[in-house]
């Protein structure tokens, strides 16, 4: 029942064009992103040492990534010592196989999940379904997305593109035992979801989670959440399987302190998140498995400029300030990671072999707002520009850019080109042909002047 991003057709400009025409979507997105943007700005503004915290977060992540091999082994040893089992997964297929085998070994056919982007990234729900195992999302927004047979469109608020009346309709149609008189009042919707989920928690013997952080020195995993459903998932079932990207590591508890400040303020605009759950190895009566997921991350780590994307703590601050995300919506990015961070992370993790992935580095006006709010100072515009240099370019564009480069390489050529433009100035049509028609569809082109600046200077100053 879960949808998948894999093999999504189209490319960013085409997807975005459709989204822009959806006025309901634009209204929902604008309202939600502006609200959360304002909240973030106000709680970040409260901390006089925010820039120092940000620098500390960046430094800790960089240090960890530089020594990732060492800390991962330390993590494995600590988890094993605490009675857990560590599995290493090179890619999505390997991770899915490990998880499916672990679930099958329990004899169960249903599992509950606490929101995990890593499992979305590897499309775990579909892989489990293929083995006859049904995965139930328990995060409220993920549940809405799953019931609606839809894709998540935001890192923090996966159902940001839905309004409450749409959610009511999804519940009425897809949620068993939902009251017929369900209104679209948020508390009523939350209560319906709560009753639905409570039953799942009490019945389920196996849970699958992600983690926001892993602490190498103790082998502890950390989940930050708002609803408490994650905590139910983590504690009630007999078997807990956590699938976590290898970049989520932190060396020590002291380092965690920095991120427990950076994440909630950047993410939900709260001083502290309502629920912080931590677990170390297996508690009594529970089996614990940690699946450490690579899936392209070591390739990203090998890239000098792009590796900073692995500092990401998935707060979604960059999405909420991004003018492009606000208009295009999360689905246009064709990945579980939308917005500015998705535009740099997805093409690095997946490569730029598809039209969609090759178009993602261009899904930005390079306005720089994302860099400014990033709590770990990922210079997203820098990575975008670097990826653009590696992206495949269309032949016509390449030819045009070569000609432009040739003209700019010598001022006499530039002057000649300007004089040609001046001579033809009366002939330039109001609607331009080819790719330039994109300009004249919604904007007038400026008049070409009678004389370029350099010719004016030549005439006045050198004479």
């Amino acid at each position, binding site marked *: 029942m879960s949808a998948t991003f894999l093999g999504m057709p189209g490319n960013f400009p085409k997807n975005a064009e459709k989204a822009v025409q959806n006025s309901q979507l634009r209204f929902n997105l604008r309202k939600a992103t502006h609200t959360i943007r304002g909240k973030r700005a106000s709680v970040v503004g409260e901390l006089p040492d925010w820039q120092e915290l940000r620098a500390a977060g960046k430094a800790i992540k960089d240090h960890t990534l530089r020594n990732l091999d060492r800390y991962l082994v330390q993590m494995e040893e600590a988890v094993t010592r605490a009675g857990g089992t560590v599995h290493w997964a090179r890619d999505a297929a390997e991770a899915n196989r490990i998880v499916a085998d672990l679930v099958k070994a329990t004899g169960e056919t249903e599992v509950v999940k606490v929101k995990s982007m890593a499992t979305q990234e590897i499309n775990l729900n579909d892989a489990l379904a293929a083995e006859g195992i049904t995965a139930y999302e328990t995060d409220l927004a993920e549940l809405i997305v799953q019931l609606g047979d839809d894709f998540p469109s935001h890192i923090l608020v996966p159902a940001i593109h839905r309004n409450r009346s749409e959610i009511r309709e999804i519940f009425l149609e897809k949620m068993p035992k939902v009251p017929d008189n369900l209104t679209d009042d948020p508390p009523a919707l939350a209560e319906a979801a709560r009753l639905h989920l409570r039953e799942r928690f009490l019945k389920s013997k196996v849970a699958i989670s992600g983690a926001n952080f892993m602490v190498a020195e103790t082998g502890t995993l950390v989940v930050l959440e708002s609803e408490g459903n994650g905590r139910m998932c983590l504690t009630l079932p007999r078997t807990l399987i956590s699938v976590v990207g290898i970049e989520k590591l932190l060396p020590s508890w002291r380092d965690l302190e920095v991120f427990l400040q950076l994440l909630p303020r950047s993410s939900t605009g709260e001083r502290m998140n309502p629920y912080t759950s931590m677990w170390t190895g297996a508690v009594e009566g529970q089996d614990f498995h940690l699946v450490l997921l690579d899936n392209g991350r070591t390739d990203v780590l090998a890239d000098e400029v792009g590796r900073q994307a692995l500092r990401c703590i998935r707060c979604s601050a960059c999405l909420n300030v991004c003018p492009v995300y606000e*208009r295009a919506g999360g689905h246009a990015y064709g990945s579980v990671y939308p917005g500015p961070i998705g535009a740099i992370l997805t093409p690095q993790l997946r490569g730029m072999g598809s039209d969609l992935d090759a178009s993602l580095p261009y899904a930005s006006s*390079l*306005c*720089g707002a994302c860099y400014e709010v990033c709590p770990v100072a990922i210079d997203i515009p820098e990575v975008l520009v670097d990826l653009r240099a590696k992206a495949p370019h269309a032949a016509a564009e390449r030819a045009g*850019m070569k000609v432009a*480069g040739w003209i700019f*390489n010598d001022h006499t050529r530039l002057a000649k080109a300007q004089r040609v433009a001046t001579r033809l100035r009366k002939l330039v049509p109001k609607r331009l042909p080819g790719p330039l028609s994109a300009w004249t569809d919604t904007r007038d082109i*400026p008049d070409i002047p009678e004389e370029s600046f350099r010719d004016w200077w030549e005439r006045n100053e050198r004479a």
Partner: protein
Amino acid sequence: MRVALFITCVNDTLFPGTGKAVVSLLRRLGCDVDFPAAQTCCGQMHVNTGYRTEGVRLARHFTEVFAGYDAVVAPSGSCAAMVREQYPKLARPGSKGAAAIAEVVPKVYELSEFLIDVLKVEDVGAYFPHRVTYHPTCHSLRGLRLGDRPTRLLQHVRGLELVPLPEAEECCGFGGTFAVKNPAVSAAMGADKTRSILDTGAEVLCAADNSCLMHIGGTLSRQKTGVRTMHLAEILASTEEAQ
């Protein structure tokens, strides 16, 4: 002070009036202005679109043309930001190119920086009796961190009524080749920006970047709003005699 004007390729070709305004403004303030004729383009379009080789070549050309001046003034936040932010990343550390970049880059100023930080003037003796709103373009705002320098200059212009622009810090949607590569999103951003501008009731939209103004102005013109766009330099160069 021997000041080189880096006009930028967009201004040179499409907005020569901005260059003329910078020349008259800087001369009025006592500068010896030169226009090195060999200059072309900073390479931003190439670098930001993914054509690094061409961009590097243009950066090398830029450093050759502008070596030896006390200051290089560019009437464009975006091109000044390109030189200051991106050039140092284009050359191999320790190379000759890196040394040339390190030599030239600190002397490159955006116009309002040069006026306030180097010439130490805020009142440039301008007169412009109109209602004006100011859009801080992204590279001026977040790249160069111009802060309130441009609006401080505008506040000293006699006759000028400066009205604040709602959601001023939002990108207008130009983004260089972004406007052509993602036309739908760019147009949507442009439409929201023009709505904010119309809300101010201003007659003139001012900015420090003609490329953004070309996109916003083209949108305003297509919508037949009657609002004009003007580069900061043109307002600052304007005097009572010229009116």
